[in-house]
């Protein structure tokens, strides 16, 4: 690097060249060279180098007071050593029982820090029940997992490693045996936490690394800062709909203190109800209990069966939380398809179709979800707005994803129901009155 402190034309050109190269490289889906469809770990790390610095300063546009209040558990203040340790662990497949799965397998740097699958694939090609959310900006959530059962990344990071169908280590000791005996790790743990490797510090280190995965530099932010040309007129109309007729903002709160677009709450929008009704689900659980199952069997029932679809209810035990899942962030939503806790919606048009018809009717449906009567043009506008929330470092990838979704939506709109959306047929009408409906 030139140390003159002044960017000469040559250097600027070079930087632009590099930027173009990165964008092109990231525009295309990376070939899968690691197990379970992930990009090879070494290659992912190279990409990461191009994406982030280890700066922990508040991103531009984010309120510094809010930034300072972001929850970092005491004793795990961010340090370069902790981030370095966490980064190494994040890409280390030894954290899985069979050596095929790392954090980066399902939270792949080349795939929007998720895996672009409906539900994630763990060791032995086991499929889980839920879609992997992106680790980008995950630090800005108040709770982790789709049902919010972990309060911090530090806690979250430790769980998939021990989950039998994700990374599959039987216990913490087994996980520590796989990495803790490595002298390189022993040194890194010592530098990061001043003690020998242990499982809690492992979780803390991974969390520290994930706290650097902040991607909040999107065209929308430049628009919010006053550049009216930063996003298209369609996207601007979409933003007005987002705040108005389409009611998105009621749950996807977005502002400089809370930039990721979530209310951190849990809502039943009916996604689970599409696949099964909750009554039948509980009957199923009750049927299993009739034979006097032991607690282990019940636990399995909850973790690995359709009981998972009860969502937040399993954590809160509140009836209003049946079938409710955490409001996902909207940042980088263009490059983190598929959508919803089960990855059941392929495109953002599907997402808009889902909301436009008032979600999926069920007895626990959140009352804020109702038919929106959005026109096709209005749907296109809201989708255009959503694509402006992707960080500029992924501009090419975002563009490619938008084209792919557009092409898909032109052919398939499996969740569109205009009669419901335009309030000609009402939610509950056919459940109650049969196909003939109201006179």
């Amino acid at each position, binding site marked *: 690097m030139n140390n003159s402190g002044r960017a000469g034309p040559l250097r600027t050109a070079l930087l632009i060249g590099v930027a173009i190269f990165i964008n092109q490289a990231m525009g295309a889906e990376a070939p899968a060279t690691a197990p379970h469809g992930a990009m090879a770990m070494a290659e992912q790390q190279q990409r990461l180098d191009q994406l982030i610095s280890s700066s922990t300063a508040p991103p531009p546009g984010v309120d510094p007071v809010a930034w300072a209040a972001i929850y970092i558990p005491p004793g795990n203040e961010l340090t370069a050593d902790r981030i370095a340790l966490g980064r190494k662990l994040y890409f280390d497949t030894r954290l899985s029982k069979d050596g095929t799965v790392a954090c980066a397998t399902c939270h792949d740097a080349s795939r929007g820090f998720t895996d672009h699958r409906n539900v994630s694939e763990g060791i032995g090609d086991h499929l889980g029940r839920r879609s992997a959310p992106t680790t980008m900006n995950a630090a800005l959530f108040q709770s982790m997992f789709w049902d919010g059962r972990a309060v911090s990344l530090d806690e979250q990071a430790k769980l998939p490693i021990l989950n039998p169908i994700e990374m599959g280590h039987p216990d913490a000791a087994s996980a520590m045996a796989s990495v803790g005996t490595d002298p390189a790790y022993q040194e890194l743990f010592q530098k990061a936490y001043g003690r020998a490797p242990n499982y809690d510090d492992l979780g803390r280190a991974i969390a520290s690394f994930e706290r650097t995965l902040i991607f909040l530099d999107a065209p929308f932010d430049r628009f919010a800062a006053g550049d009216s040309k930063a996003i298209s007129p369609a996207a601007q109309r979409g933003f007005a709909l987002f*705040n*108005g*007729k389409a*009611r998105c*903002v*009621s*749950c*996807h*709160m*977005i*502002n400089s203190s*809370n930039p990721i677009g979530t*209310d951190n709450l849990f809502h039943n929008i009916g996604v689970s109800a599409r696949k099964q009704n909750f009554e039948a689900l509980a009957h199923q659980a009750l049927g299993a209990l009739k034979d006097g199952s032991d607690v282990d069997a019940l636990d399995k029932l909850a973790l690995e069966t359709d009981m998972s679809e009860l969502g937040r209810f399993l954590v809160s035990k509140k009836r209003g939380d049946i079938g409710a899942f955490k409001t996902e962030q909207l940042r980088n939503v263009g490059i983190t398809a598929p959508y919803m806790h089960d990855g059941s919606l392929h495109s953002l048009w599907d997402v808009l179709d889902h909301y436009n018809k008032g979600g999926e009717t069920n007895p626990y449906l959140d009352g804020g979800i109702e038919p929106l009567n959005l026109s096709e043009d209005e749907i296109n506008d809201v989708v255009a707005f959503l694509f402006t929330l992707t960080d500029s470092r992924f501009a090419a990838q975002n563009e490619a994803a938008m084209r792919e979704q557009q092409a898909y939506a032109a052919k398939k709109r499996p969740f569109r129901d205009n009669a419901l959306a335009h309030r000609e047929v009402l939610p509950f009408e056919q459940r109650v009155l049969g196909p003939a409906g109201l006179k």
Partner: protein
Amino acid sequence: MKTPALLALALLAVSMHASAQDAAGTPQQSPAPASGTTQVKLCDNKTTVQVSKDAPKTREEGQKISDSLMAQWKAANPGKDWVQAEVEAHQVVTPEDNSKLVGTGQSSTYGAVTQQDVQVWNNETYKMAVYGSTVFHSSDELGSDIAVSCDMCHPRAANTHPETYPKFQPQLGRVALLRDMINWCIEHPVRGKVLAPDDPKMRALEAYILAQRKGVPLDYGKR
């Protein structure tokens, strides 16, 4: 102590009330001027309607006659009693009494505050709140697509808590003023078109809602 200004207003209201009552009283039948029809006259002795003698003597028919008379009277007396009519239906809290200022004043340029000054202030202020009440109670005035008005959830502006604004409204993702929340309600529960901040209806709605919470201490930011 009742202030002269308020008394004046109240007297005005009572007299208007009385005239409205007289004018809108029950229909009376009077001798038929033309053969085959009966003339039905309103008790103001001016408004009339011709009714066929063959018309069925049903309640429904009777109601039609009465409706027709009322419609004529209202057309002939546009806006005559809107303040009184609104206040009779929806008691609107009266504004602060400023009559103690009568006879005072700090500048020789304008002299002392007069009885008339106080009355003007009072009357104009009250009228704005009363107009707000008519909008608040009318789905048509609000432009509702689904025949919903504010009073359906907020009788006499209950639970509108204007004293708590501005405050952070999580579901709007931002700090809301009272008018932002009014507009949210207009757009969603009421399903009408949002009002410009300086729209006379918006100003009047704010006036009415604030009037109904007279005396409650400001407590901005309260959830």
